[in-house]
């Protein structure tokens, strides 16, 4: 299996389809519209990188996810803002005790999972914004080990959460009731399947068939594993700015992988050689 870069869009700049200062989060809806947050804005692109719409957020957004009913959830410091697909603000969930710094959001059925990087755990809410339970908090280190200050996860089709636990150099799997099901990954600098540095991988998503896609910092790489943790392939680091970190990832319905370069403020698009996954 090989992935190759098929396009790059956005980038640093002052144009409407560019980001002036920051680019933190990316999400893709069921219609393959690409939502990116940075500069206290949501920008929506089509798969060709053409800007479709943009709107301001109340605070800088650090992650964005779109639910099946096309509500756009933007994670911020202290809150999650909810918009309809046209960018009209529906509401904001403010829960200062539990939503300190929101860096990832995922869905399963009526559940909304929100990563609070401040408290280093994942919160489980219902669609009405009522908190249900925490995931990854009740352990010896009182949360995931995230020296970079970002916590990222993805939810699979069975409702299992796959979480990047970077200082452990692992990807851990949890039930939504906070049971650790297992993990894979280990520290190492020589084999591409291992995770180097103090804390990798930093970001994570899943393909439709359940492969695990992660990014690493220093050096920036995009890596692919199957659901059992078997290493498949990687791309980078030469395509990204070497000082990139916390590079958010999303996958569209065709299996194309979208990766943020958080320094050059680019969105890189990769496709699997031989077609969709």
């Amino acid at each position: 299996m090989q992935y190759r870069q098929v396009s790059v869009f956005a980038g640093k700049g002052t144009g409407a389809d560019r980001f002036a200062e920051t680019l933190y989060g990316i999400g893709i809806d069921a219609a393959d519209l690409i939502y990116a947050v940075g500069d206290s804005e949501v920008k929506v692109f089509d798969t060709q990188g053409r800007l479709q719409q943009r709107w301001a957020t109340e605070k800088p957004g650090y992650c964005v996810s779109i639910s099946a009913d096309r509500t756009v959830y933007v994670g911020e410091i202290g809150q999650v803002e909810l918009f309809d697909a046209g960018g009209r603000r529906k509401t904001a969930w403010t829960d200062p005790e539990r939503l300190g710094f929101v860096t990832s959001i995922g869905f399963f059925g009526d559940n909304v999972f929100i990563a609070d990087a401040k408290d280093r755990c994942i919160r489980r809410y219902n669609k009405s914004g009522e908190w249900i339970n925490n995931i990854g908090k009740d352990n010896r280190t009182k949360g995931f080990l995230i020296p970079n200050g970002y916590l990222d996860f993805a939810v699979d089709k069975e409702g299992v959460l796959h979480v990047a636990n970077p200082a452990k150099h692992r990807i851990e799997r949890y039930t939504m009731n906070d049971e650790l099901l297992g993990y894979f990954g280990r520290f190492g600098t020589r084999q591409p399947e291992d995770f180097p540095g103090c804390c990798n991988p930093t970001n994570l998503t899943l393909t439709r068939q359940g492969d695990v896609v992660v990014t690493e910092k220093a050096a920036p790489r995009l890596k692919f594993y199957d659901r059992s943790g078997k290493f498949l392939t990687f791309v980078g680091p030469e395509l990204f700015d070497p000082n990139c970190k916390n590079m958010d990832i999303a996958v569209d319905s065709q299996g194309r992988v979208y990766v943020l370069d958080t320094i050059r403020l680019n969105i890189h698009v990769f496709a699997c050689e031989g077609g969709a996954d």
Partner: protein
Amino acid sequence: MNEEPTRRDVLGYGARGAGLLVLGSTAFYLTKKAHAKGVWVIDPAKCINIRLGTTGIDQFCDKCATTCVIPLSAVRAVNDFSKCGRCCICPAYFDVASDIGRDGLPVRKLCPRDAITREAIGDVDPDDPLNNFYEYTIDKTKCNGCGKCVMACKEPAGLGSIRLEIRYDLCTDCNRCAISTACPEDALARITRDLAPGGKAVESSH
């Protein structure tokens, strides 16, 4: 928490003093022994071990350790605990390019002088030592400011919590500073008290 909280007084230089004032984000620290006329400081925007953008342990510069006239040098590395990630595998402590032992940790340390200690914070999980935070402390009696750990801890590989400081209790202020002459990056700068706000240096206690 900082390793040495009493030293955390930051010199907030204003726009005066031309190039010296474009000194990057890292703060400077003076001490009670700072000389009235001025002191030598390391410009974090210039020092190759500190400045962002240059990465790779093979690039580190040890001129601060090898050219200072003081035995063991007047330069030391300091770990700012308020920034440190307390990682299990700290690339400033371990030589991450070395072999991996049975415990899953690199077998060699990075510091050539074994000046960094690693201590688990709280209870160690006997079944999973990765399940812990670790504190990294630099022994000033051993460190010679070679800068290797500073380069390794730099963003994005680390969090940039380790920096190099000139210790003014050690520096004899020899006025021509041998390091400033040898520094390939012209990163040594002499600042005077006049540059400090209100003409007064902010002092802390080494």
